[in-house]
């Protein structure tokens, strides 16, 4: 049924808009921009910050255009002197309780409050008064919270609760003492936070940020005793360019590798190679589970935020989770065993740095299970944003870098591994290998379109070796929860599930370049980054993990076969039930 239209006037322009939409949306569709701050489409539409206020003829005061619905005959003014002055007062009030340390703030340049202050020519703060002082929470391995920069827009709260279904943070206390915090103001380390970092992605200011690991990486890079190896996740190459002003979805693999080499890494490898191992092990595990009547459906385990979520919320379902380590952990383990031996390196002198789109990887890295012979598989994790900062710090002109290639012998990766970075990609890569393994043929139909796309839950039935297999790919933890409830209630009729904690998968991870709420309205960021990965896959000469020559060689020389004793020792892990609240 078509929605009926209403007629209204915005800034003297006759506008037709669908009934039920907000003035803000109607104005934007008509090409009239209204500034916003707390507004996040479909996630946070609460009229909290009052930056978007407008005047409606015949009404007293101002209306918040993000929640005020359009009405027939309405006459709206978005740009009068009164409106602009009122917005300026609103901003003044917000800034009066904001720690203004822009020069040293990590979000300087990508801060929505800063942008608005500039736009409104805020040269002075009239309402300077008492400011809320708060202790910085930097106890978790992934997220730093500095509440003195919080403007109470609640975008993080809505994201954590609605999109992720976690609810680690909420508005607590009242009046001037109101703040966004956890139960009893505990560290995120001690509550039900999964470290997905979606709160950071949605924070307009520097109140939430990743725990910076660039310092330790710099130190190791400058230490001649240490052999520093970088490995980069698939999603990083699809987004790193944005930090240098390049178009969203630009593939910057070559420049990224060149940049890392310039920074002084002894070797630059591709986590995609690790992803190919993950597929080998995971496809094998899946086939074994099917053939040996194991626990089904099997759920993927590459996303550490997701793993922490199930450990805290559904520990009884842990046997469903694949025992495979995530790609960078597998790869780190191989670097410190197979590669070290091959190159005659002392594994204890190797420092593996994973460049990830993810901040939960920082947590995953230091899990005690991720160790072999007393050494962590991975020694440090930096995000896409942190790598960009390092490149800028080193005064490297990223845009003009000549393309460079991953180092050998661990640099070869397949198209299957590239698509690991997007929702549905791990599933598709696993299916490619599973169908070849089961049929013993080199099948040509390898695009599984049904698991592509941005939907939060994608269901498909695929035919593999004459057998129908039902699969699900879910991204975003609120969607994951729906799938887990289905499994718990016994209504799940599928055998293989891929879950990624971040909506859209790793390309939209908590460590990726931050996009303003407006940029996200204008562009489908997820699709552009995903398309970049799918095009890398299309262009790859090898598109199935089991055909990767590096993978074949290492199985031959070292691991023997998927699921072998050594493979289990190095490439698989265990999970544990976790308390949601440590108090």
């Amino acid at each position, binding site marked *: 049924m078509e929605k009926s239209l209403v007629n209204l006037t915005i800034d003297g322009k006759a506008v037709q808009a669908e009934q039920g939409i907000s003035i803000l949306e109607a104005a934007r569709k008509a090409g009239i921009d209204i500034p916003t701050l707390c507004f996040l489409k479909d996630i946070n539409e609460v009229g909290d910050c009052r930056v978007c206020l407008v005047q409606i003829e015949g009404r007293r005061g101002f209306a918040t255009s993000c929640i005020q619905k359009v009405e027939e005959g309405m006459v709206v003014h978005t740009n009068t002197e009164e409106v602009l002055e009122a917005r300026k007062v609103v901003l003044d009030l917000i800034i009066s309780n904001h720690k203004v340390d822009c020069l040293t703030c990590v979000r300087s340049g990508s801060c929505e409050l800063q942008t608005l202050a500039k736009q409104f020519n805020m040269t002075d703060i009239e309402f300077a008064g008492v400011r809320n002082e708060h202790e910085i929470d930097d106890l978790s391995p992934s997220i730093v919270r500095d509440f003195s920069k919080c403007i109470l827009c609640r975008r993080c709260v809505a994201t954590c609760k609605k999109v992720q279904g976690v609810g680690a943070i909420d508005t*607590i206390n009242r009046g001037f003492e109101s703040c966004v915090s956890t139960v009893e103001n505990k560290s995120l380390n001690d509550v039900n936070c999964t470290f997905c970092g979606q709160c950071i992605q949605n924070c307009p200011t520097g109140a939430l940020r990743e725990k910076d690991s660039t310092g330790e990486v710099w130190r190791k890079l400058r230490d001649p005793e240490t052999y520093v190896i970088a490995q980069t996740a698939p999603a990083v190459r699809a987004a790193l360019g944005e930090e240098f002003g390049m178009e969203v979805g630009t593939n910057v693999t070559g420049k990224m590798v060149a940049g890392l080499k310039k920074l002084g890494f002894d070797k630059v490898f591709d986590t995609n190679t690790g992803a190919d191992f993950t597929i080998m092990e995971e496809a094998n595990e899946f086939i*074994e589970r099917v053939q040996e009547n194991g626990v089904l459906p099997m759920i993927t385990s590459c996303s550490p935020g997701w793993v922490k979520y199930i450990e805290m919320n559904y520990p009884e379902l842990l046997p469903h989770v694949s025992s495979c380590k995530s790609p960078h952990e597998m790869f780190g383990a191989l670097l410190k065993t197979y590669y070290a031996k091959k190159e005659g390196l002392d594994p204890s002198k190797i420092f593996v740095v994973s460049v990830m789109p993810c901040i939960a990887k920082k947590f995953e890295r230091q899990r005690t299970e991720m160790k072999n012979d007393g050494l962590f598989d991975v020694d440090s994790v930096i995000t896409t944003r942190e790598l960009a900062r390092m490149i800028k710090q080193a005064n490297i002109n990223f845009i003009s870098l000549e393309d460079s290639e991953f180092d050998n012998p661990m640099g070869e990766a397949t198209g299957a591994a590239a698509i690991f970075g997007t929702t549905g990609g791990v599933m598709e890569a696993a299916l490619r290998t599973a169908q070849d393994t089961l049929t013993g043929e080199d099948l040509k139909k390898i695009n599984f379109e049904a698991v592509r796309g941005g939907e939060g839950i994608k269901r498909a039935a695929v035919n593999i070796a004459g057998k129908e297999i039902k699969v699900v790919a879910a991204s975003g933890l609120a969607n994951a929860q729906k799938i887990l409830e289905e499994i718990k*209630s016994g209504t799940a009729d599928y055998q293989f599930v891929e879950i990624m904690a971040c909506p859209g998968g790793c390309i939209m991870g908590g460590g990726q370049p931050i996009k303003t709420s407006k940029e996200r309205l204008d562009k489908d960021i997820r699709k552009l980054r995903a398309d970049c990965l799918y095009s890398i896959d299309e262009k790859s000469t090898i598109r199935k993990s089991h055909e990767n020559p590096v993978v074949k060689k290492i199985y031959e020389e070292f691991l023997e076969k998927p699921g072998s004793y050594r493979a289990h020792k190095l490439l*698989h892990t265990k999970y544990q039930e976790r308390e949601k609240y440590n108090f």
Partner: protein
Amino acid sequence: MENEGKVDFTKQVDAKEPEKKCKCKDKFLEELFKTYQPIKDNLIQMLNEIQDHYGYVPMDVQKELSEFLKVPMAEVYGVVTFYSRFTLKPKGKYSISVCLGTACYVKGAQKIMDRLQERLKIGEGETTEDGKYSIEAQRCVGACGLAPVFTVNGKVYGKATVKLLDSVLDELETSN
């Protein structure tokens, strides 16, 4: 030796979780969870009953309530810290409230509050270590004609002065 280190994923698990036993700390909570449907709308009503029963909303009860209603604990805590009716600490044997509503405030209630805090050496919303006294700020008790007003366990003292407060405290001091 061959299977050592290998993760056993063939072990079947019962898909359905065994009926979750209430880890409730007491009968009251058990009864409460039987009385109410586990839906979010019941949060405030249940908190009311909990506050009345325990005299405050203990943290472990918030945790139980969060599990029962499937509401994140941060949200439960947010509601508890928003409404002044809910407290996180038990109130004292003598719960003293000073009205700081407009009428009382204008009539100098802040002086009474300051004196009270000075004498008991605790702040607003706190309880003395011996559990004897607690202080609260109230917003209008509906006796503006008697402003300024303070109450001790619900008993109203009108037209209050610092002197009156002192004498009431002296009396309580000797009464155990």
